[in-house]
């Protein structure tokens, strides 16, 4: 076969992920058989539905990678849409916010992804933080309802920043021009997703096996120091081991992985705080075993823009 080196690397990464999932499915089946003995068991059943959902998610990501840049942009456009829907559905708004929310869904979201598609960095990096930031409260004010005004407009803006602006920095990685790395930008996304989601998974595994002391009991009952340290350390090692797929040296890859793991961890804490305040456990029900889109994406949301700008500052001349 006549595959380019970057396609070969991508296929190897998918092969690796495939192997890990196969292992996870086998362990899940074994636990179900030996520990739960076929009976319902909340932790093991949840583990198995999480693994099953991962098969689907990896399948969807693989499909979008196969379609190249357009496929990735469409995938993250849809992810942003579902994340924004989950966020706005739980936010307190009133009739006066209707126009602002409609603009967020039907103008801000498509325009942001269009700007990334045409690679207009100067505008997509300020479109939501500047233009949407100013226009949305104007639209809400025109609605004429002053009750809890600042709170309501802040929620619409925050939802747009988190669900659209931050998430859109994942496909924006495709626009970076790194000398000597041309045509291989999909690997930048693969590194981000594997390290950040790997960190979530490893924190879960370490936490379930050794977790005792809670990091932030009032925010998230499932996050423990043992899970955090073990998960972040092993995900950093994983990132370093993947240096050959990136423009980084092993040391740089480890440092980058550590940075995005920590951002991901704190992102999870922030999004948990919002959920606790609203009295819900999950953002939605879209992904079996995980909760909603935002439950799966909270760490990527906080890691992506930092990763993007670190790459852009140090690797793009």
């Amino acid at each position: 076969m006549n595959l380019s080196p970057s396609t070969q690397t991508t296929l190897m990464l998918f092969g690796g992920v495939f192997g890990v999932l196969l292992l996870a499915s086998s362990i899940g089946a074994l636990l179900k058989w030996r520990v739960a003995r076929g009976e319902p068991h909340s932790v093991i059943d949840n583990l198995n539905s999480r693994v099953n959902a991962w098969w689907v998610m990896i399948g969807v990501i693989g499909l979008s990678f196969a379609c190249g840049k357009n496929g990735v942009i469409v995938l993250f456009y849809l992810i942003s849409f579902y994340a924004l829907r989950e966020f706005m559905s739980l936010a307190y708004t009133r009739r006066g916010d209707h126009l602002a929310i409609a603009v967020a869904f039907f103008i801000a979201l498509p325009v942001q992804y269009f700007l990334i598609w045409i690679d207009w960095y100067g505008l997509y990096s300020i479109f939501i933080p500047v233009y949407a930031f100013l226009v949305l409260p104007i639209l809400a004010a025109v609605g004429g309802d002053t009750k809890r005004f600042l709170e309501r407009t802040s929620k619409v803006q925050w939802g747009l920043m988190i669900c659209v602006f931050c998430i859109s920095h994942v496909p924006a990685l495709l626009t970076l021009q790194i000398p000597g790395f041309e045509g291989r930008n999909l690997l930048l996304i693969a590194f981000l997703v594997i390290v950040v989601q790997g960190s979530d998974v490893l924190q879960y595994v370490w936490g379930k096996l050794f977790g005792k002391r809670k990091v932030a009991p009032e925010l998230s009952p499932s996050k423990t120091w043992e899970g955090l340290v073990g998960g972040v350390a092993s995900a950093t090692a994983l990132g370093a081991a993947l240096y050959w797929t990136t423009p980084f040296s092993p040391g740089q890859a480890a440092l980058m992985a550590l940075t995005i793991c920590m951002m991901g961890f704190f992102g999870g804490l922030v999004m948990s705080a919002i959920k606790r305040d609203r009295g819900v456990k999950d953002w939605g029900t879209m992904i079996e075993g995980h909760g909603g889109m935002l439950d799966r994406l909270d760490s990527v949301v906080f890691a992506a823009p930092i990763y993007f700008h670190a790459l852009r500052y140090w690797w793009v001349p």
Partner: protein
Amino acid sequence: MSRSPQSGLGLAAAASAWLIVLAARLLTGVRAIWSGTTPKAEQTLYFANHTSHGDFVLLWATLPADLRAITRPVAGQDYWETSALRRFIGNDVFNALMIRRDGAGGQAGSDPVGQMTEALLAGDSLIMFPEGTRNTGDEVLLPLKSGLYHLARACPQVRLVPVWIENLKRVLPKGTLVPIPLACSVRYGVPIVLAEGEDKNTFIARARAAMLDLRPEYDRAEDTTP
């Protein structure tokens, strides 16, 4: 029921029903939450909060397909018979029970409770909105009309299932043109039964509480901050 799937109108109605349900699902991602009860092929009166013309569509879309076929929404004739399209949707697609709400006495069809009782006695399941009108203001739930009590008395064999439709009011508030794609849910609760000798006000208060109790926790929290 005059519908036959062979006729052109019947096919158009079935296709329209499918399209409307699909559109409702895509727009609102609606999901059904059955707590303390399950869908049953028994004669049922669903009573729900009413904030939008789309309420019965959403409720209907979340019912299993076999229950949809036997469940008719109760709809206001004054709204659904004003144009050919609305008549088609109301009569042919949803087979709605058209009632007159103007209360002009004397004429046939001006007695909503009587019409609903008749339909229930004929074996239909119904979707009704006990507030009697659409709630377009800030109130969570308007006071319930007494119709529910009279129906419970006249048809004790019918399951009375409280339903809470969440978020649809925010999708398309009154006076706006563009619907926003917020996630909606339809929550079904434990059926209530009219107790022996229970008076009207007690029963209506209980039905109202059963509806309000179905709200998600975060909606109930909003009550404390008026």
